[in-house]
């Protein structure tokens, strides 16, 4: 091919240097590799499409493309964790650049050069060379980091209880990457060694490596170059062909999952609408998941971010979100072939499925491949083991260990939604089979009969406010805010103190508010998250009826569970209100100068993020702002905080269930002890109970305590005499 010779000022290189008569072969091999790739995707597609209920996750494409850009291309979720984030970023961005580079090469060689246009020349070529080497090294570094992490440091997240879950696939994928980069650099350095252009110092890595070939005769080097070139090409093509059959498929499933990620508020659970006619509720069989819920499992790269902060896993429970999703995937892989077959039969009922009218050639290929696979593996092609999804593939202990803390979903770099799957399977156990923990049955009966989990008489709900002059909406409906107190604030002795403190603050600040008193019902959060959707909807509807009856518009809660349920789930049933958590209100009152914090509070305070406040509702700053406004205190953070905070153990109906082994609340309290806190400040009554118990179990109740933000604020407002210590002798003995 004619071109102006390369020289200083017209720097460049001959694309496909030293590769003679390669084109036909390269095209042929590429065609085969792409064919294998496409066929793999097609077979996977069949499996994705074969099971699950319909669900639309491609509405509002524009917004979804933005999410794809953010999470798929910019890898924002992956970078939340520095080491693996950088590791993956080096490989990902490195390859993006290398692929663009290869595309430039190919474009010049196959498209523009035949027309006499060569653009990889001069300064552009030099920058191009430099960039390619730089990003090639980036990939190399990323791969080495990955190898080091997986095979040398071996963090627990790449295992389950010390048992590594690395497979040959993981090694093959990494070695293919390594092979591509290493052979790439060797090719480059051999070319530089032979051609010796002075400007190739810009290809700094290849240039440096070429020094290793000093003394090798040009002809030998050219032969070596030709061999390495083909090896490189085969690895690349092998890599492409391998994608659909390996963990590398995540290059497709994960971006797809980001595109299809949940766009509803965090933690929203779609309500069950038909109780009357359904025979089964929730998910008892794989097919009862939506196809997207199943697809989720296929997107999992078992990176273990979820497991790293899972309170159940870290306290020795059988649950690991990673394992759960992987078990689901394994189960799906067992079930899917038969489902694919069934679907084919359904499409063409009268004919042998393989040779139907639609796609006869593809169907024939499917048949041959299935046949060969069956022959080699001795595996029957359509009769998966009869194993129940709930109870066998996913064990009940795993299912019930989840606190719904949302750590897994918040931190998943593939936008997998674990919690709704767990709730759906719980729904099956509770609603369809009525087979669940006796203590939870008692809780539900109590909620049914007295609208609170403890079963305290429902007529006593408003009693905490008796002496405070707080009016009920029945007495005065013309108030700005409804203070929805919730069960803990109404019945639990500790919770009642929080309600009292908060009501006093509101009165002091001149906020117009009222309560529902005995007309209030349980919010139903524990019922819903424990799988009892029916009870939950009964309770929600009771509340909504009363609230709508009074024309309630704005609601304050002191409990994040009520906050979340009212805010996100009540709109499903016609309950639309502005919902505020008391920390939002308190922060606002302080900012507006409606209340002033005067009294100094000495000691070290740490704030424990409630999951339903933080991860669910992104309320991280207000509690800290409030505490920051209290004079005198020293605020320290625990190691696990904000979006990576550690759950107290009470969410997801766990509050009402027995906990085996190491307790989550004790573990969390120990984390507070580690930072030498005197007070664990919380914004949730469940956390309050759990932290108080945790402090006691750590035998620190003499020197430590747990307080709600409202209690701290009320104390610091310094409007009330310290109560006299309770008189030990009420009256002189007779």
């Amino acid at each position, binding site marked *: 091919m004619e071109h102006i010779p390369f020289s200083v000022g017209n720097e460049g290189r001959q694309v496909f240097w030293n590769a003679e008569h390669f084109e036909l072969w390269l095209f042929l091999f590429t065609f085969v590799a792409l064919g294998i790739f496409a066929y793999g995707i097609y077979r996977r597609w069949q499996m994705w499409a074969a099971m699950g209920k319909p669900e639309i996750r491609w509405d509002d494409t524009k917004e979804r493309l933005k999410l794809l850009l953010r999470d798929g291309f910019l890898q924002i979720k992956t970078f939340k964790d520095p080491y693996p984030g950088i590791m993956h970023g080096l490989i990902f961005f490195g390859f993006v650049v290398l692929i663009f580079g290869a595309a430039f090469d190919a474009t010049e060689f196959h498209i523009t050069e035949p027309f006499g246009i060569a653009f990889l020349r001069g300064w552009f070529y030099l920058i191009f060379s430099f960039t390619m080497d730089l990003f090639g090294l980036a990939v190399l570094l990323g791969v080495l980091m990955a190898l080091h992490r997986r095979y040398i440091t071996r963090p627990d997240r790449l295992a389950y209880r010390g048992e590594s879950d690395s497979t040959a696939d993981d090694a093959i994928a990494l070695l293919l990457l390594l092979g591509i980069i290493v052979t790439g650099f060797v090719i480059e350095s051999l070319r530089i060694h032979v051609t010796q252009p002075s400007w190739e110092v810009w290809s700094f890595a290849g240039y440096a490596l070429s020094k290793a070939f000093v003394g090798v005769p040009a002809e030998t080097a050219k032969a070596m170059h030709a061999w390495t070139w083909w090896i490189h090409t085969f690895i690349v093509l092998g890599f492409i062909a391998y994608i659909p059959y390996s963990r590398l498929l995540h290059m497709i499933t994960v971006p797809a999952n980001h595109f299809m990620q949940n766009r509803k508020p965090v933690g929203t659970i779609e309500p069950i609408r038909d109780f009357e006619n359904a025979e089964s509720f929730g998910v008892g069989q794989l097919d009862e998941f939506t196809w997207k819920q199943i697809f989720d499992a296929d997107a999992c790269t078992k990176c273990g971010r979820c497991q790293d902060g899972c309170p159940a896993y870290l306290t020795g429970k059988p649950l690991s979100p990673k394992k759960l999703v992987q078990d689901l995937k394994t189960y799906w892989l067992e079930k899917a072939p038969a489902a694919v077959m069934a679907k084919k039969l359904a499409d063409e009922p009268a004919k042998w499925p393989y040779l139907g009218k639609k796609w006869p050639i593809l169907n024939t290929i499917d048949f041959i491949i299935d046949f060969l696979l069956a022959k080699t593996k001795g595996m029957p092609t359509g009769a998966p083991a009869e194993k129940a999804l709930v109870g066998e593939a996913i064990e009940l202990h795993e299912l019930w260990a989840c606190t719904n803390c949302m750590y897994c979903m918040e931190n998943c770099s593939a936008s997998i939604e674990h919690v709704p799957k767990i709730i759906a399977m719980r729904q099956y156990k509770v609603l369809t089979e009525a087979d669940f923990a006796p203590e939870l049955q008692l809780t539900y009966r109590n909620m049914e009969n007295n609208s609170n989990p*403890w079963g305290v008489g429902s007529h006593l709900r408003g009693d905490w406010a008796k002496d405070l002059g707080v009016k009920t909406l029945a007495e005065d409906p013309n108030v700005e805010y409804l203070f929805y107190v919730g069960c803990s604030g109404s019945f639990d002795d500790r919770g009642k103190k929080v309600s009292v403190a908060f009501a006093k603050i509101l009165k002091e600040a001149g906020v117009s508010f009222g309560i529902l008193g005995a007309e209030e019902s349980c919010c139903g959060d524990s019922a819903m998250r424990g799988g009892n959707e029916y009870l939950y909807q009964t309770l929600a509807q009771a509340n909504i009826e009363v609230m709508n009856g009074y024309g309630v518009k704005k609601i304050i809660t002191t409990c994040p569970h009520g906050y979340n349920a009212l805010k996100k789930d009540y709109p499903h049933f016609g309950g639309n209100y502005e919902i505020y958590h008391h920390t939002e209100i308190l922060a606002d009152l302080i900012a507006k100068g409606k209340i002033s914090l005067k009294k100094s509070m000495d000691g070290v305070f740490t704030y424990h993020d409630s999951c339903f406040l933080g991860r669910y509702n992104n309320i991280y700053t207000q509690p800290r702002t409030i505490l920051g406004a209290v004079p005198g205190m020293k605020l320290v953070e625990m190691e696990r905080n904000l979006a990576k905070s550690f759950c107290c153990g009470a969410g997801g109906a766990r509050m009402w269930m027995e906990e085996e082994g190491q307790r989550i609340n004790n573990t969390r309290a120990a984390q507070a002890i580690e930072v030498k806190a005197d007070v664990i400040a919380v914004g949730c009554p469940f956390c309050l109970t759990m932290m108080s118990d945790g402090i006691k179990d750590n035998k620190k109740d003499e020197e430590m305590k747990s307080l709600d933000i409202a209690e701290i604020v009320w104390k610091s407002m310094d409007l009330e005499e310290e109560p006299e210590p309770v008189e030990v002798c009420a009256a002189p003995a007779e």
Partner: protein
Amino acid sequence: MAKGVWIVAEHRDGALRKVSFELASTARKLADQTGDEVAAVVVGSGVEAMAAELGKYGVDKVFVADNAAFEPYTTDAHAAAVAKAVKDNDPAILLVGASAQGKDLAAALVGKLAAGLATDCTDVKIEDGKLVAVRPMYAGKCFGEVVFNAAPAMASLRPNVFPIVETAKAGAVVKFDAGVDAGALKTKVVEVQKEASGKIDVAEANIIVSGGRGMKGPEGYGILEELAGVLGAAVGASRAAVDAGWRPQSDQVGQTGKVVSPNLYIACGISGAIQHLAGMSSSKYIVAINKDNEAPIFAKADYGVVDDLFKVVPALTTECKKLMA
């Protein structure tokens, strides 16, 4: 016209039970107001000797049905015997003990006699010459004054409530044939399992001595078991103690354990978390022993002791032993 105040005397292991004397004393008091005689029915095997003892507590006449078929107690044999005596003599009032056996017998008699019965009475009185029985209802949330439209007016009396008063009367024994054919009985006691260990299930106990985190360890429960032994009580535990492995799960009182309503609940070293209160606050009397005077349990307690339980409990055991001797 029905006449006379009757009692059914209860006995076990060859001796009259204490409730029988309470019944006799109460019957005497009622009979003195109506000007009637007091009669007792004793049904059993070899019971003639003990029957005479009832005279000491104001019983004028004792009807005795003595037959091997009456031992051990079965509802059908005893109810048939008592019903026969009642039908033959037509008393106006019939008092029974509200013990396990007495309640069982009294209810069967209601069917046999087409009578009315007030169960588990805490007071009985005569108004206009007729029996009025006062009894707790709705687990003690209200009381009912029961009046009767049929004879005999029956009441079962809660044990340990009515005073025992000695009034010497004849206590003349009258034997009668109850006409019970042992072969025709459709129920029989095939085994009596005495509580060998003396362990009583918390769910069934009338008195529970319960320990929590304040017991400091499994060895701390020794003093509770001693107190329970004296009181005939069961030993319970809070969730904290069970979680710590100090006590078995079956002893756990509370939301996630057993919900109990004994006559007396003695909470030792239990702070009173709502989970615990939910399981025991319907107890009739609650005693709390805790050194933390701010423990929520004191809000529920009838009697609170703010002190070191390791000193109070042994002292309480000694005192109870004295009182109950």
